[in-house]
């Protein structure tokens, strides 16, 4: 089984203890969401799972092998991450940007092949950016730019997908049909998805499992059906939360 697993993770950023002794196993076909108040280190946990941040103690492993022992390119073929934001300095085109996602699969001197370009066109179509191939990044809206990021992650074809606030800048239709559609597709393709979201209702709607980070180093995790209750969310966010049902969905909101 090609699962991503965290073993006794202790992560700190300065004075903030993100988690102590966190253990979790992200199996293929599962969708997880990390929830917690601002500044508890959700993004840092995600970057640790990607092998980009070193925990104080414990280790992250893919398929039993510690990420620190994995060759970089091999790790990049197995684990892809979507960052919360981006700072474009030079005006690459949409195609050029999405092609960067194919980097782990190309040898240093060999350019991307026609197959790679075909894959890019196919994914751009999926994210509704067909015809944007030659557009300059600087000419895109926030939501379009976000979809370019999603496309670049999708063409990486990694077994594990880590998403930091993937719904940022997306309108409701794109949140549900596009992002939701991509997540469903990844689930069916037996990929493991771990994301950070601020929208509780999207988290409940998309995920199988939730991880709560409370901010004092404590964490809890479980099936979304067990975790998603008014009491749990109220405690997590230190804010009374309400709940109602409509259209066969559980919806949560701050009181």
């Amino acid at each position, binding site marked *: 089984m090609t699962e991503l697993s965290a073993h006794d993770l202790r992560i700190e950023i300065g004075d903030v203890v993100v988690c102590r002794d966190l253990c979790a196993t992200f199996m293929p076909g599962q969708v997880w969401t990390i929830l917690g108040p601002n500044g508890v280190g959700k993004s840092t946990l995600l970057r640790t799972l990607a092998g980009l941040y070193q925990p104080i103690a414990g280790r992250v492993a893919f398929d039993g092998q510690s990420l620190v022992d994995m060759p970089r390119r091999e790790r990049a073929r197995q684990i892809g991450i979507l960052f919360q934001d981006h700072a474009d300095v*030079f005006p690459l085109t949409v195609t050029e940007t999405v092609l960067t996602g194919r980097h782990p699969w190309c040898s240093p001197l060999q350019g991307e092949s026609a197959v790679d370009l075909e894959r890019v066109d196919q994914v751009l179509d999926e994210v509704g950016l067909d015809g944007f191939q030659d557009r300059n990044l600087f000419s895109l809206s926030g939501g379009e730019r976000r979809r370019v990021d999603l496309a670049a992650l999708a063409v990486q074809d990694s077994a594990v997908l880590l998403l930091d606030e993937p719904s940022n800048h997306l309108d409701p239709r794109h949140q549900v049909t596009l992002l939701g559609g991509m997540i469903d597709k990844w689930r069916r393709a037996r990929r493991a998805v771990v994301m950070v979201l601020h929208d509780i209702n999207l988290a409940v709607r998309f995920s199988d499992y939730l991880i709560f980070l409370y901010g004092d180093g404590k964490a809890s995790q479980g099936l979304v059906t067990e975790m998603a209750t008014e009491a749990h969310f109220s405690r997590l966010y230190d804010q009374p939360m309400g709940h109602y049902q409509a259209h066969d969905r559980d919806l949560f909101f701050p009181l």
Partner: protein
Amino acid sequence: MPARRAYFLPLLCLGVLVAAGFSLAIGTIEVDWQQVYQGLVAGRPSLHYEVVMGIRLPRAVNAFLVGGMLAVAGALMQVLLRNPLADPYVLGVSGGASVGALLAIMLGWAEAGISGAAAVGALFSLLVVFSLARGAGHWSSTRLLLTGVVMASGWGAMVSFLLAVSPEAHLRGMLFWLMGDLTERLPGGFRVGLLALGLGVSVYVARSLNLLATGEQRAASLGVNTVLLRSILYFTAGVLTASAVTLAGAIGFVGLVVPHIVRLVIGADHRLVVPGSLLAGGILLIVSELVARTIMAPNELPVGIVTAFIGVPTFLFLLRRSATPRS
């Protein structure tokens, strides 16, 4: 593969040849090509042969090398610092070279000694900034930029100090060195090799440069060893700059503006930006050198002034043209 715009590279090669042709043909002396031809074929020395082969050719070759080095160094530096305003001199390499060269001029050293002192100064500055910026092991772009900029202004103060205290007789030579000037000796194979090596390394890492441009963390997540890559960029750009500065002084503007001109015309894919910058930088400097020695003949202007006179309007024109409204 960015095949779409790769056809610009052969065009630029052609441009280099055309520029070099003009540079050999034009000057204060109307060249009698018959004599040059006979000098080449029959080895018969003549004034015209000497002017073309002994003066104009070396200067054109030097101009190409220096322009190419500075433009490639600038392109690399802009990615390394993730800052479009970066140029080869921003981290103090040229400042170190200038202080070395001015000291050598003050001491009355010969030309070779001046170049040597400039090289030592440049490499010294390169190493100091690198070790200070790395600090505890992690070096962010901001920290590197700040360290380099502070170092550069320190060198700038040193330059002013040396100019203030040096005797009148040396001042003109010092100022000309600072403004940049091309010698009339053919460059050694060392410099040509250095430029070729710099180009080779840059093209080899060019795809990783595209990734680094989209963010350091993102590049790392896609399998790039960013610490190694940034060290490679820093030293490649630094050594190219040092070599250019010791050959021709601190010629301004080429390293800042040529990579941007290339990006505006060919696009931002660094597999094309790097070789394109080399060729375009070479062209700009060959033409600048030609203008510098002909426009006010028999007086000669420092090349650095002409690069700015040609580069600024070109850049502004391209920038304005590219600022098209959305969609």
